[in-house]
């Protein structure tokens, strides 16, 4: 019986349109949450697979010695696949040409993850095997430079090989320090016959591992024990590539947009539920009079909201799935394989969001509704104690839970939570005081007097309404600003003429000739930086504990490189030229402070120095960047090669090949494809972000509309009484419009302040960039407030004005 009755009420409410606000808000929230979480989940999975493939395994051990293999093989690692490769640089000869190449010799377990895309006479094909003995694969650049056809002979060291295929795609692209030159892949068992690897040769041995997470952890622990100087362990972690960072930033933004939209929807749901409750007061009183028990009424409303949950989840998830499909379509071409299906987490977070919204913003109202006295049936004026505080506290609890659910950080949730509460208390209190004291009378003699009197008279309600508008406008501005300014600065961070080629291994002899070559062909280059490999010791070079556990490419120059800013200490000058400048992340990671003594070990030479300054470095500027920079006077005796980057316009691309022919020991590699890929993905992600902006703004608009609509039921009655007493429509319209324009102006101004605080927080904490000041927010806030609030108010008041006062009084 209860089920039927509840379903009947639900259908009646649906038809009447009174549930529209709650339903639309819930569907909006579910669409946004599920859409975003489904999308980010699939994106994360795809990125993880990409990173795994990029690394070539779940864990990589890089060593300069080949002794590690024996040690590893002695261990009995369960469920672990293992492979070995050796990397070195060598000159390869064809019948006509010669070229420096980065050679990767792989064993028969190669590739451990993913597959290669190759091309031979028969066309393109996929391979999960290593090259056959006596054959090599080369990338297209090397094939062109050596002028090779399939089946041609090439010479490497003392051996000759057959060029069998062109490498179009290789999974383990992050292959060590020799990845700068055009690539050759050969079989590991052929290495001995070349006689290239001799004692003292510069060779890197890579060991790749694949297996379950806990087993990989065991392998890692073991490798830590056998690791020697210069060895490195790489694990599958967050992708630090530009593409990874780009997607990571957009994920942050997506989640932020989702949280904002959910909070806005939650506020709308709260307001709409209050209205729902007021309408149902007489209904509940009547049911009680007819003998229905409180528990039965509670169950009836519980069922009603259960129907609502199912309906909204159904529509919301369907729309959410469509939304994420659109997003995925935008970026799918950047992933080599089809994106993996989502896990259960997006559905869990969506259901939790709905549950929190239901219990935090709807259920408290229903609980209050159930307490209504049956006397209400007999006496219409039996008061309905709304018990504002418990309802408010439940809302706050739900707000905190939502924050925690989305940020997953207790401290951050607490900061935002108390920040918002503090701001609300100050904001509402200030608005309350700002509106001033009531004067006797309604001031109905003119529109401005009436408007001001109304603002003061509904001080408490207006304070809340202004607060709701402030939040809605503030959040919309934050979303807008984030999409325009943050993404804008991000997009413009890759200017059209960004260097698209890097040149390394430039010998001191080639340096001047190459500079001349570039000048002659009107190619603008970045400075030529000397570069060498060094180990750094903190304080005591004898103490192994003081050794910084990695090698650095360091440079020495007098001028501070562009897009580097000194954070602490001072850059070099005539008097200060014995120190080094380190990047801020190195300073933080290795606890290096200004004035700390360091020893720089280059080959066998050791240079004593100290930390003279720390710098912020823009790593995304496609210029050579360095963790450690010294003053040239310290490195006079050090021999080095040079590195530079330059931009070759598309119509001069032939110059790259010419440059490589002219300077054969110099390695030139193009990053144009990477730049294009990042530019394109930013553009596509921006489109997805704009959709989130649109949905968030829609939630904000809906909240504003609900807040206004709620206040207008009272206004409807007042307007009817005033018009009966002879007030003209013009007076009512003008005064209401003036009142809401003022309300919009106050809300917009406060919204702009909220947006400034929010944007500062997002820039500094979420995007981890330097916070900027955006003057347009201070104009857009009040304008948006006036336009949105007064337009909505005009729409509502026009509806009232069209009806005769008699009809309004009868409603």
């Amino acid at each position: 019986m209860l089920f039927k009755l509840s379903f009947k009420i639900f259908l009646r409410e649906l038809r009447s349109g009174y549930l529209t606000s709650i339903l639309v808000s819930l569907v909006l929230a579910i669409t946004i949450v599920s859409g975003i979480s489904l999308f980010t989940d699939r994106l994360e999975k795809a990125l993880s697979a990409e990173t795994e493939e990029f690394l070539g395994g779940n864990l990589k051990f890089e060593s300069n010695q080949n002794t590690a293999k024996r040690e590893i093989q002695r261990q009995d690692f369960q469920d672990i696949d293992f492979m070995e490769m050796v990397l070195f640089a060598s000159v390869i000869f064809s019948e006509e040409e010669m070229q420096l190449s980065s050679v990767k010799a792989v064993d028969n377990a190669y590739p451990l993850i993913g597959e290669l895309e190759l091309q031979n006479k028969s066309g393109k094909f996929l391979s999960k095997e290593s090259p056959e003995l006596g054959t090599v694969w080369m990338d297209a650049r090397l094939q062109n430079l050596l002028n090779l056809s399939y089946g041609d002979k090439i010479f490497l060291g003392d051996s000759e090989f057959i060029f069998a295929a062109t490498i179009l795609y290789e999974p383990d692209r992050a292959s060590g320090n020799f990845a700068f030159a055009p690539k050759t892949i050969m079989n590991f068992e052929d290495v001995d016959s070349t006689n290239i690897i001799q004692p003292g040769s510069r060779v890197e041995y890579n060991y790749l591992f694949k297996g379950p997470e806990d087993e990989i952890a065991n392998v890692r622990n073991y490798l830590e024990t056998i690791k020697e100087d210069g060895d490195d362990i790489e694990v599958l972690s967050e992708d630090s590539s530009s593409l990874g960072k780009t997607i990571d930033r957009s994920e942050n933004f997506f989640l932020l947009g989702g949280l904002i939209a959910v909070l806005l929807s939650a506020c709308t749901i709260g307001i709409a539920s209050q209205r729902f409750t007021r309408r149902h007061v007489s209904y509940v009183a009547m049911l009680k009079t007819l003998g229905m028990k409180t528990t039965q009424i509670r169950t009836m409303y519980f069922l009603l909201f259960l129907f609502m949950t199912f309906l909204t989840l159904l529509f919301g998830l369907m729309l959410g799935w469509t939304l994420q499909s659109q997003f995925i379509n935008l970026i799918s071409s950047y992933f080599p394989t089809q994106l993996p299906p989502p896990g259960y987490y997006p559905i869990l977070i969506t259901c939790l969001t709905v549950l929190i919204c239901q219990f935090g913003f709807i259920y408290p109202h229903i609980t209050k509704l159930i307490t209504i006295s049956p006397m209400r049936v007999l006496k219409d004026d039996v008061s309905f104690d709304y018990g504002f505080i418990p309802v408010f506290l439940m809302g706050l609890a739900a707000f905190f839970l939502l924050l925690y659910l989305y940020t997953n950080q207790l401290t951050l949730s607490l900061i935002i939570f108390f920040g918002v509460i503090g701001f609300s208390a100050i904001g509402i209190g200030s608005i309350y005081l700002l509106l001033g004291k009531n004067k006797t009378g309604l001031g109905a003699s003119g529109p401005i007097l009436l408007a001001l009197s109304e603002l003061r008279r509904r001080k408490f309600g207006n304070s809340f309404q202004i607060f709701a508008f402030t939040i809605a406008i503030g959040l919309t501005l934050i979303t807008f600003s984030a999409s325009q300014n943050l993404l804008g600065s991000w997009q413009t961070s890759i200017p059209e003429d960004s260097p698209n080629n890097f040149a390394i291994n430039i010998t001191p002899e080639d340096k001047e000739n190459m500079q001349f070559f570039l000048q002659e062909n009107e190619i603008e280059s970045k400075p030529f930086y000397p570069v060498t490999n060094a180990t750094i010791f903190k304080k005591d070079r004898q103490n192994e504990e003081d050794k910084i556990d990695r090698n650095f490419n360091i440079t020495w120059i007098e001028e501070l490189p562009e897009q580097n800013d000194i954070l602490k200490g001072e850059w070099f000058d005539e008097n200060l030229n014995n120190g080094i400048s380190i990047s801020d992340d190195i300073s933080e990671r290795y606890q290096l402070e200004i004035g700390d003594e360091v020893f720089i070990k280059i080959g066998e030479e050791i240079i004593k120095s100290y930390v003279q300054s720390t710098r912020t470095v823009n790593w995304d500027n496609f210029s050579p960047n360095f963790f450690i920079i010294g003053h040239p006077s310290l490195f006079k005796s050090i021999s080095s090669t040079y590195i530079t980057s330059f931009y070759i316009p598309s119509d001069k691309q032939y110059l790259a090949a010419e440059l490589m022919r002219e300077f054969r020991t110099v390695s030139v590699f193009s990053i144009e494809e990477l730049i294009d890929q990042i530019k394109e993905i930013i553009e596509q992600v921006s489109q997805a972000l704009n959709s989130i902006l649109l949905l968030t703004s829609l939630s904000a608009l809906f909240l504003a509309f609900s807040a206004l609509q709620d206040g207008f039921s009272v206004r409807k009655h007042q307007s009817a009484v005033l018009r009966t007493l002879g007030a003209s429509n013009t007076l009512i319209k003008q005064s209401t419009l003036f009142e809401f324009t003022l309300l919009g102006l106050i809300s917009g101004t406060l919204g702009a302040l909220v947006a400034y605080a929010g944007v500062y927080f997002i820039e500094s904490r979420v995007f981890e960039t330097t916070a900027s000041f955006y003057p347009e927010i201070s104009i857009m806030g009040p304008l948006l407030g006036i336009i949105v609030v007064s337009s909505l108010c005009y729409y509502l008041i026009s509806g009232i004005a069209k009806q005769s006062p008699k009809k309004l009084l009868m409603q």
Partner: protein
Amino acid sequence: MILEVNTLRKEVSSGDSKLVILDDVSFNLLEGQSLAITGPSGSGKSTLLGLLAGLDTATSGEIYLNGEALHELDEEQRALLRKRKVGFVFQSFELLPSLTALENVMLPSELKDEDEPEEKAKYFLDRVGLKEREHHYPNQLSGGEQQRVAIARAFACSAKILFADEPTGNLDPKNGEMVSDLLFEVNSETDNALVVVTHDHDLADRCDKKINLKLGKIVE
């Protein structure tokens, strides 16, 4: 003549068909006279009152209020006419809950931009015996008291004609009698015309004229 009504007709649409609420209603009323409109529920009493007061428009027919052709006026002009010449008392009082008794009574004077509306309102509140309750809000007053505030507000309009829709309908007999006494007492002091829609025969009997409506037509 304060009120002249000729062949008044009011139809409303109900789906595809038209429902006649009032048909061929004609009567007139002189200054200072009182008129009771009676009839069973659904006979069109309140609709007629709404048309006479310019709150609604007739389908056809003429209404002259204090010589002005109400049927030819638009909504804004009718509002102006109401402000200058009409006062109201409703069955459900229709006080503004956010205003005190005094402020509710001040409203008509404020709308007319009269001098010292507060003094005038205080006078009428005193006249209906609610001087001590002037700063109370409607929800702090009983039903009878609220209706007395509504009467004070109606007389504060300085109207030529007062329309009262079931003024005692929501009150117990004692309070109902008190309110109807007050209505006639104050009305006699101001020489207004009074039009009352009522089911209350005693109240109707106190009026100078009576109209009985049945199915939208005057039957006596």
